[in-house]
């Protein structure tokens, strides 16, 4: 693994992880308020 490959992987990994975390956060927060979302974040009601 070259230095560059390593760096790119780290950054992609970081963003992927954080995106997933915030996606989950959004779904959870809207759900507990009784405002469910579809998988594409559109309102389910």
């Amino acid at each position, binding site marked *: 693994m070259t230095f560059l490959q390593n*760096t790119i992987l*780290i*950054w992609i*990994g*970081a*963003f992927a*992880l*954080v*995106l997933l975390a*915030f996606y989950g*956060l*959004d779904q959870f*927060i*809207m759900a507990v*308020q009784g*405002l469910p979302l579809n998988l594409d*974040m*559109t*309102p389910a009601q």
Partner: protein
Amino acid sequence: MYKKKQHIMPKWAGILLLLAIVGFSFSPHLLPIVAAADTAMDAQAIAERIQPVGKVRLLGKPEPVIEEKIPDTLSHENQEQELIPAPKLTRSDYPNIGVSSRSVVWLIAQLHLFFAAFVLAVPLFVLVIELIGFKTGDWRFDDMAHEFMKISLSAYSITALFGGTLAFALFLLYPQFMAYMMRVFNTQTLIYAALFFAESALLYIYYYGWNAMRYGDAKWVHLTIGLLLNVVGTTLLVVANSWASFTMAPSGVNEMGAITGNIWEIMKGPLWNPLNLHRFIANIAFGGAIVGAYAAYKFLSAKTQAEKAHYDWMGYTSNFIAILAFLPLPFAGYWLMAEIYAYSQQMGITAMGGILAWLFVVQAVLIGTILLAGNYYLWSGMSRTQGSERYTWLIKYIAFVLVVGFLIWVTPHTLILSPAEVATLGGSHHHLLGPLGIMPAKNIAVNLMLIFTFLSFQLYRRSDKIITVPWAKAGNALIVAIYVVAIVNVIFAGVYYGYFTNTVYKVGSSVIQVMSTLMVIISCVVIDTFMFKGAKILPSHWGKVSDRSQYALFALPIAFTWLMALMGYVRSSVRTHWHVYTVMKDNSPENYIPAIGHAGNMITIATLLFLVIILFIFWLASLSSTKQAPPVEQTATGGA
């Protein structure tokens, strides 16, 4: 062996005492009053608070079985009371002393609240600083905490002076209103007064006993006294808050103002706790800002480099406290406003959609000032270390976001237009700026401003460190990702749910935004804490900061003070022409909401008076540590 025993005992006695106090205050079994309050507060509709349930019983039928909500000890006296309504006043019932009664009470009340907020706030963060000093063994913290308390002490008596004057003014100028309030709150007012004995005792012991109880177990005793001081102080705050929240959203009384509930029902109205939280946090921010001004003043007048360094550091700490406490304030304010809307749509609309709407634009100006000043101070402070050079390129972007956010926040929605202006504009709202005037845009703006303010903090904290952990690259990538995704999330939630879905989703999306901001703050603090382990610390040149930056530390308390008075104007005005909303009408000569220009002038007078007195207090603090040099003895010279 003997010594060890002695060492453990006081410390553990103190801790056990603390637990006992906390346990007592939470356990319903030990304190029936708390049990009563708990049961009385469960799931009551707002209508029920104001209108009690009567009992209808038919002749010959048995009494229906009804759950006892309140223990007899508290409600039996009410059953025997005659239902006396609130007084109905006419114009001639109001005493006239030749000057505007409203202005007199306004100024005195506002000054009392300024000082009260200050003296309640300082012990809160002093206790934390003292604890930090004790735990880290860095005695500079302890000395700074002691110095903060010195300032607070002089302010304490001035608070009481204004409190007494306020009471006199209220009884003189609004006697029937006060008679009614005394009838409603009854013994609670005496308890409030009595608490001041405890507050004074604890305050004086805490301050004067500082050096006597400095080390070891004695320090734990001292800290406990500080904690008790804060408990009493907070109790005073929530008791006084109940009077204010009662006048806005009365509870425990019926439509006519007759008392129908016990003191807990009267106190625990729908606005009490939102007001408590908001004022508690705001007090801390306010107190931090004031002591920051003290530090800035001393910095600017410092004669030696050591003095400059000491006060520079103090200023930084004060700014840190002020901004840290300031960050959650918008959310506490949002809760307060939401509760006002839930209690009475009319009151809510009066505040934000009606006559007081422009006021919140002024609020935006003030908050913009606070954020810009706080951030500017942090950026200036980066000059204290060399390591900051890596980050200075970010400052212009942070500044850009803050300014744009501020402009969006300031943009009004409803413009009061003449018909000609409506024609020119092409409608009642500007087609481009109109959408910026409503909540989704403002929520985006404020959340981004808070995120970027926190970024300034984080950059400052990193400035003096060279990170040495092996996973630094991954950690930094994570932090950048968190910022980027959070910002995108805030904007997405605001734009999509705010403009393209229905109202319920729009309102719900604001929680996403708040949580995103909180996630940034919490996760970055946690990650940095781990990343800083074993970091190489670069020297910080305390005292090496521009004089200009100290003016930012003055701007902060001025803006805070003025903002606090502005919010007082809102709180009082949302009741429109009522002393106690819906229950006791205001029929005084000044029973109308004053125009915002007049309010601005009154607020300025109060702010300037406060400033002058605060400078006096700073001077007193300096005076108490000044020692005049004894006269030099004249030796006989020459002569005859």
